[in-house]
């Protein structure tokens, strides 16, 4: 907190308070108060980003390095062994199958969550029906429930169905989320004027066509945000896939975890696995990071 103090103090002192009056026009746009943040702001931000980025780079350095790399205090230069460790990962776990499974699971879950959330969110936001408010409160309340704690009966159900070891068992429990319904309701109640729905109805649209022609186009930005978050959620899920899948048919997360099994752990192989799983996401992040950021920031305002 002291760091914060110094950094913020440095900034506005550039403009003495008495000067505020003649600068009214500029300050209304929020520029006047702390227009030129000091060097300290950049220093702290730079250090934070360094702390956030270095463990990733370090993983790559160790995954590509020799035994000597580990002896260095802060190793920075990658070694020649990355491909060797990548091959070791490919031998140890069914990496490509795991990657494929993760893509299938995340895609199916995302499509399902976005579809059903938009439908339900639209009904809650714009249609009138008996019990609407009560059901919506129920949806909001379920958002706080840690459903993860129901894995024991869920496992029993999957065993009865014979789905243990099958990715169906991972997909089905994630097909809907209360958060998705809540997000779409919040968004749609704001963006669609009731008159538009009335107009569509007067023009002879039935309910589903009104939904398709009025709600879906309006809902697109929120659908994109929801899709992004749902994909992330399904992609990172670990506890349940680990319980219900086996080592031969894993998702990416459980396959990575299996790299660590056994008494002797070769950390350069483990880290090579972590790097392999992260590289594709990093490229996606560089391409679509802006959307992710605006999604998080927009989601916060709604949520």
């Amino acid at each position, binding site marked *: 907190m002291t*760091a*914060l103090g110094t950094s913020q103090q440095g900034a506005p002192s550039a403009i003495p308070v008495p000067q505020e009056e003649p600068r009214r026009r500029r300050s209304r746009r929020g520029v*006047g108060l702390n227009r030129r943040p000091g060097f300290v702001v950049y220093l702290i931000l730079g250090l934070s980003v360094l702390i956030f980025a270095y463990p990733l780079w370090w993983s790559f350095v160790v995954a590509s390095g020799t035994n000597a790399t580990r002896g260095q205090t802060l190793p920075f230069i990658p070694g020649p062994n990355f491909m060797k460790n990548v091959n070791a990962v490919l031998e140890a776990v069914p990496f490509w199958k795991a990657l494929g499974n993760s893509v299938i699971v995340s895609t199916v879950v995302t499509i399902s969550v976005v579809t059903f959330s938009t439908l339900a969110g639209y009904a809650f936001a714009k249609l009138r029906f008996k019990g609407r408010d009560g059901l919506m409160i129920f949806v909001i309340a379920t958002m706080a429930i840690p459903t*993860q*704690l129901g894995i024991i009966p869920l496992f029993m159900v999957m065993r009865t169905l014979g789905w243990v070891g099958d990715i169906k068992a991972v997909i089905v429990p994630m097909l809907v989320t209360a958060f998705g319904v809540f997000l779409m309701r919040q968004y749609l109640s704001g963006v669609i004027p009731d008159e538009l729905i009335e107009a569509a109805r007067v023009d002879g649209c*039935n309910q589903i066509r009104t939904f398709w022609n009025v709600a879906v186009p309006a809902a697109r930005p929120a659908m994109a945000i929801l899709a992004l978050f749902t994909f992330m959620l399904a992609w990172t899920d670990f506890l349940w896939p680990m319980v219900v899948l086996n080592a031969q048919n894993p998702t990416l997360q459980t396959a990575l975890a299996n790299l660590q099994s056994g008494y002797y752990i070769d950390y350069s192989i483990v*880290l090579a696995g972590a790097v392999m799983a992260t590289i594709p996401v990093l490229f996606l992040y560089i391409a679509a990071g802006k959307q992710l*950021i605006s999604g998080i920031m927009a989601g*916060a305002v709604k949520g």
Partner: protein
Amino acid sequence: MSSMLGQGPPEAVVETEWAEAERRRSLTWRQRLSRFDLKASPYLYISPFFIVFGIVGLFPLVYTLYVALHDWDLLSGKEAFVGFENFAWALGDQFFWNSIVNTVSIFLLSTIPQLIGALVIAALLDQQIRAKTTWRMGVLLPYVVTPVAVALIFSSVFRNAGDASLANNIVEALGFEPIEWKRERLPSHIAIATMVNWRWTGYNALILLSAMQAVPRDLYEAAAIDGAGAIKRFFSVTLPSIRPTLIFVVVTATVYGLQIFAEPRLYDVSNAGGIGGADRQFQTTVLYLWELAFFRRNSGRASAVAWLLFLLIISIGLINFVISKRLVAGEGENQLSRRERRALARAEKDRKAVAR
């Protein structure tokens, strides 16, 4: 329908009567369809959510309570009704309390620094800095690394004193004795909390940043004119204004933090198969629940633990909600100004009404 028309006698009067009746009937039929569409569609639209959630979300949770009241083996199934015996067993079990202590310790070590760090970073990003998007992307970078990969990376960063590791390299370079990061309780908690902090600080900073950007700049200017320095402005303008978002972040962090699993599970698998250390020094409650259910296959006891944890999460979530509400409400400056603003708006309206 056409056959019905054809059946009628060929007299003109009757024919028009038939046509009339037919028109009326077809209208009401369409109306009825449309009314059905109007009434049933909402339920049709919300039913997929409720049906699927009921089956895979709610039912397992409620059924967990039923399982908890029985002697129940994971594979051979239900044995005998035992009432609250499993709950009594869990409450008297030292490993259960051990896991609760560990969970709460890791939770505190991760949530508090995380919130402070996120507030600092958000406040810095809220300045008029150059290359905004680049900084934001840099801060969010760890979020795209999955918890499993984070756990793998940091279980390699933090190792025992005998093994060369990044953390101990730094500790030794600073002139301290190397630390038993996996063997000892507190160091292992710090290491696991570091994983959580590393992944979530930037994410929460962005959420807080978006709330900070919604704070009207006039408030800061008014405070500055009143002589409030940067720190004073942060505590008496920024914090109260972003209160709802702060509560949101705290509650989310609580629900996540108390269910932490991947990080302790993968922190040290070479010892005792990854149940949280040889002495369970970093076994969290979800990890203990997993051990009970899928290692020892005692579904009854595991379910009792699940419900106790469920109650704990709900109550800590509520306590957090109340505390963070009160904590930031204390300043109350923004509330006052909001009330003032409302009063001003009312006065303005009255003035206009009088003028008219």
